[in-house]
């Protein structure tokens, strides 16, 4: 309750100020994430600094083009998309044979029985470090055609696509078609460095998904995760998890988990910061660790023995703890509260 009141007072003091020059960071807040409900249709990006959340349907996009100096393309892990490289560079040459092979092996189905699944998804912890689609080469003939399952995890399955991405100056050209088509479409994409990625939908072209790179700190979404499993490829099994929390590793956020037993949340202050090592290259630092249970014998639940400390791109440091998985009993609407520990620049 105190957190709510504090947040309200910060807001009211802001709005009373006729002409704010600098908006100070929120000192605390309670966010009820609008994940859309029990089928968790949305990915939700939250800025702790402003307390603003942005909900976007997971099915909005298909491919994300990196705006960095490299040329990398991600597939939509939030729908469980999977891809496999073909041996062709001519998109029209890919068709029935490749589809049949992928269907027979089941390699493009994200499930517990697909032990090779991890080879067909972007790295769940740091997708740009190991995307399933090889970095787009300046040598056009090195860029293969990929067969793409657009994902069927918690969303309706759509027909498979075939895609090929080549460079186009400082941008990209995407060639795409239904997997069994004999013609294809092309789309040119230019990088926008205010954003981490440029998002593209096969139907709608460039679409808005993620807020500008400094406008969010943590995101809640369903998506592809991984778990150690000795029998699977690389000892890792890719699977779909409905309560992932990412921090914005490509936009300058870092995060660390703290155990209540080490420093209680209520006692945590800026003097404790030097004891922490923030992580900025594994977006699953919060990941699925904030939630426990879920299985035949235990109900899923927020872990009450851990919380997180998140540093945003402006070096504001917040302590964040998750409160519940539901809103009025409805899954896919989790909530968390946070407090400013140290203001940044």
């Amino acid at each position, binding site marked *: 309750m105190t957190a709510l009141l504090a947040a309200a007072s910060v807001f009211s003091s802001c709005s009373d100020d006729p002409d704010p020059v600098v908006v100070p960071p929120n000192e605390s807040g309670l966010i009820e994430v609008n994940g859309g409900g029990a089928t968790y249709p949305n990915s939700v990006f939250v800025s702790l600094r402003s307390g603003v959340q942005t909900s976007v349907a997971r099915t909005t996009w298909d491919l994300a083009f990196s705006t960095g100096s490299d040329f990398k393309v991600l597939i939509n892990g939030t729908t469980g998309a999977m891809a496999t490289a073909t041996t062709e560079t001519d998109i029209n040459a890919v068709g029935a044979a490749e589809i049949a092979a992928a269907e027979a092996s089941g390699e493009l189905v994200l499930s517990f029985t697909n*032990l090779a699944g991890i080879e067909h998804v972007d790295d769940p912890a740091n997708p740009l470090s190991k995307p399933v689609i090889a970095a787009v080469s300046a040598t056009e003939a090195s860029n293969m055609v990929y067969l793409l399952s657009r994902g069927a995890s918690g969303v309706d399955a759509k027909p498979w696509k075939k895609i090929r991405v080549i460079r186009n100056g400082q941008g990209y050209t995407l060639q795409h078609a239904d997997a069994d088509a004999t013609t294809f479409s092309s789309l040119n994409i230019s990088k926008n460095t205010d954003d981490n990625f440029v998002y593209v939908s096969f139907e709608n072209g460039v679409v808005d998904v993620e807020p500008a790179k400094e406008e969010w700190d943590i995101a809640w979404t369903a998506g592809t995760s991984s778990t150690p499993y000795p*029998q699977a490829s690389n000892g890792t099994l890719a699977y779909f998890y409905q309560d992932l929390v990412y921090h914005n590793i490509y936009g300058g956020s870092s995060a660390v988990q703290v155990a209540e037993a080490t420093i209680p949340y209520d006692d945590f202050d800026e003097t404790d910061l030097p004891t922490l090592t923030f992580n900025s290259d594994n977006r699953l630092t919060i990941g699925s660790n904030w939630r426990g249970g879920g299985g035949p014998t235990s109900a899923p639940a927020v872990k009450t023995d851990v919380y997180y400390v998140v540093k945003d791109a402006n070096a504001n440091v917040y302590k964040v703890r998750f409160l519940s998985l*539901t809103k*009025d*009993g409805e899954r896919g609407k989790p909530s968390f509260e946070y407090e400013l520990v140290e203001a940044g620049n």
Partner: protein
Amino acid sequence: MSSEGFAQAVLRGKVVSESGEAIAHATVWLADAKGKVADESGRFELAELPKGAKLKISAVGFETLLTEWPAGQSEGVFALSQSTSDLEQVVVTGSFEPQTARSSVYQVRTIGETEISKRAPMILQDVLNTQVGIRFSQDNAVGASNMELLGMSGQNVKILIDGVPMVGRQGTSNEININQIDVNQIEHVEIVEGPMSVVYGADALAGVINIITKKSADNTWGLSARVQEESVGSSYSPFTGDGNHQRGISGTGKVNNWDFGLGYSQNRFGGWKGDYTGRQYQWLPRNQDFANVRIGWGKDAISLDYQLDFLHETIFSYGPETRLEMLDQHFVTDRWMHRLLGQWDLSSKFALNWQGGLTSYTRDSETWVSNVRTGEHYPSSAPGAQATIKYEGFSWRTIGNWTLGPKLKIQPGVDLNLENGSGERITDNEGMQDYAVFLTGEWTPNSWIQIRPGLRKAYNSLYDAPGVIPSLNTKFRLAKSLDLRLAYAKGFRAPSIRELYFDFFDASHSIQGNPNLKAETSDSFNGSFNWSPKAKGELKTSSVLGFFYNDVEDRIAYGQDPENIQITTLFNVENYKTTGGTLSQTFRYKGLETNLGFSYIGRYNLISEEIEDTPQMVWTPEVTANTIYEIEKWDASVSLFYKYTGELPAYQTVVDGENVTAQEVRTDAYHWMDLTLGKELIPNLNLNLGIKNLLNVTQINSTATGGDAHGGGSSRPIGYGRSYFLGLTYQLNK
């Protein structure tokens, strides 16, 4: 004597032992559920005789006598022979009229009233948990327990109350929850192993458990009350909250041709937290309320018995602590079950009896929200948070009994079963109608052979009912004290409404029923030797050696839909077999009665079809020892119930790249023991105190590993630790 009394000639009878001594308080049964009790000196009077002048006379310690009043006589003396086995019981399952277990062509196992009262049960599972061949596994997520009979899962067992099938199979195990039955209403339990599908139809594939309720046959009025307080492991608080609390009261009365019964029982199980420290329970708290009304009427050749049972059960599943919103689930079951039993003796050659049931079963899953910060508590309005499953079932079975001669009886019957299921995760359907005719008969060519063939033909509106279902039961009296029973039967299990119409699609599940399923069928062979030698002095013994083989085809199993591999559905694909033997040995010496049981049962290893170097059957033993010692001079008794449940092996596949191998996994063995001390405090008031789960078992380990999200954990809950109980029973009859 008035002229009226003179006109109505009174028939006087006397019950004696073989040596001519009077037997006090024998029960003289005239027709189904009507009877008189003989006095101290074995004498009784009858105002009129039933059709055919048939009598059944039973007394504790004696063989039940089925006889006829001597024609034309006004007095009769009836001699009962001493029981060779104290467990001599009158059974009804599978036969037209009550008969002794020994003369039944079926091998019927009974758990009698004495043993049930010594078990001091809270739930029926407390009575069955030291029976050989019966295993339970707990489904603690929903507070239910699943049963296995001789290696076959509980969905293959038909659960009957007074011959009327129960409705309301629930959960993934598709079973009747036997713990939703009022134990205070149970007179005795009959268990028949092996298919009884000719008479009882679908799902009587592994066997039948027939729960026989108490009747007020011989009293003008009666009153009984029971209170029992029990700890749940070490947690207990008096009468409410923690612990296990039961109270029940029932009354019976008889006016002219009518008799009435009224009963109410209450169970309050406070749950057990186990490893949880917060709000959650490993064994969920459960409240049960049972009410029962009975009205019977009998005159001349007709008897009718109507019963109405009501159950209201709430199981509380408390969610984990959170800092904001906590979710609890309540599973609320309401069941109304009407039963109409009756018999009409049309002539001395032909009689009809019927067993009708009408059941309405609803199970609500309610989700409640508690907001920690505001203190609000309200039902969740989220989609799917409030779910209901509803079953309506109607069943009617009529059997005719036609005596064609002293050696031949035939019993034609019709069996009608209608069931509707609707609710969350079940697609709309028109319900199931099952119409069947069957014909059984019993041929007794001579005094030592009994042959009972049977045939059933059914029509089902939803699935292809199996063709003609045959059965053949035989009994040979090899010697005066040695019987051999041999039987073959075909059994079947109908696909359930859930298996046909399941519809469960959400973000992580895609499961769909298959309306094209057909029944699972089995071929079953079983036999038993039953040896009951004459008593040697005070020592009486009896032995039953049984063996069986079941071969199940078209077993329903989950698989991927070939048209859409994302969808899981059901197919008639698997084979299953069970085989094994059981041995039951009873000793009775003075006040001591001990039953030792042993079974060794093999279950089919499905993986042996793919990986040949694994055995086709995996075997597991069980040992039971149930002892009751009556100390007459103190009006007291000591009872010890014990069971060893042997290690259960199984195989699971291990996939390593291209290699698929089999790995043996084992579920641990465990020992279970209950101890009861009984004492009559004052006449009609009995005290029971004791310890359940004396060996303090909570869970056993399994080496099985779960390969997916729903893979079983490595431990299985068995009990909630050593529990102590104290109970009082008051029973008064006039």
